[in-house]
């Protein structure tokens, strides 16, 4: 089994421009250090109709209400500002920005627990002996020689579909054929209950695919058991 850069088609070139936008890095940095409530705020505001911050401040009194002050309030303000900036990019662009932010967030959280011996990379394929290469690259990979990991990243639970689940499970299965313990996971910036409702209806094999939902994103920093 080995990792390989994905070939860049026209879509990938356009998307690379989104990924390189400073807003993506800023939002991902803020979300990496965010509370679960702040991440819920980000999900709501990035997908909101209104871009006036006061409406969102009123909607999240635990973050901006009378009891909130000091550094936590300041961080929540930064999360809100970045989220509204994403929403302000317009309906056509915001979905691309949101996807890029989830990928960058995942990469940053994983990088917190890895070193040079297990680099975190983006847009990579996994090749197996005697197996036809997959069409779509993985959004994020942790390329450890001994305990590799592959991640697909989604903005919402609705992005969980059979193609994604099958690809992740196939990779895990092919790796097992080569005696490699590959962790396959899907990261979703959406609440766990909605993701599980989606997964419950899926006929794709996902019993060995790990779900990392909005409430458990910080698990990505933790060393794999």
């Amino acid at each position: 089994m080995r990792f390989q850069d994905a070939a860049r088609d026209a879509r990938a070139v356009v998307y690379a421009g989104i990924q390189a936008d400073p807003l993506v890095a800023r939002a991902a940095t803020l979300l990496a250090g965010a509370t679960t409530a702040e991440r819920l705020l980000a999900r709501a505001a990035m997908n909101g109709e209104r871009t006036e911050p006061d409406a969102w401040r009123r909607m999240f009194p635990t973050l901006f209400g009378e009891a909130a002050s000091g550094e936590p309030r300041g961080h929540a303000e930064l999360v809100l500002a970045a989220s509204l900036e994403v929403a302000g990019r317009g309906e056509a662009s915001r979905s691309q920005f949101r996807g890029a932010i989830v990928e960058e967030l995942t990469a940053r959280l994983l990088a917190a627990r890895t070193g040079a011996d297990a680099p975190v990379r983006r847009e990579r394929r996994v090749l197996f002996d005697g197996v036809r290469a997959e069409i779509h690259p993985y959004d994020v990979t942790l390329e450890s020689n001994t305990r590799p990991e592959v991640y697909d990243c989604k903005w919402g639970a609705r992005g969980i579909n059979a193609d994604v689940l099958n690809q992740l499970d196939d990779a895990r299965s092919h790796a097992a054929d080569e005696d490699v313990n590959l962790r396959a996971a899907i990261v979703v910036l959406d609440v766990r209950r909605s993701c599980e409702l989606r997964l419950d209806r899926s006929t794709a094999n996902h019993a060995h695919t790990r779900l990392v939902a909005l409430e458990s994103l910080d698990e990505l920093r933790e060393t794999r058991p």
Partner: protein
Amino acid sequence: MVPRSRSGRYARRVNERQRITERAAASYRALADLAESIEDEWQYVTDLGDAYEPSILALADANGGRPLEPEQVAAVEEAIAEIGLITDPHKAIDWLSTFPHVVALALGGDVDEPAGDGSRAPDNDSTEPDEDSPFRSLLRGDR
């Protein structure tokens, strides 16, 4: 003139909790109606509605039915106003997942479990969700 009784004021404040959760649930149903126009997602939309609408209604009993602060009511009203602006059914599907948790966060409750299994507060005066509830991290603000 009969003076206002303390129990009367309490009842009105408790009714406020019920009123706001019923309004939230009605808005949620309207959002689901909009989302249902995406035929390929009908099942998912139905599953979300079946799961979350009872959980939103059960928030009337969250925190032992403790009276709400004005900013909690305002927060839910803002969330209701936000989803009332949505006209895109695709966006409606995203909000079917987000809205219940925004409301629960504002009301200090939990919509992570089916209503009756974990959403309803116990009979005692506990203000905390179960230890193993993912929602617990929303309330305590883990970083």
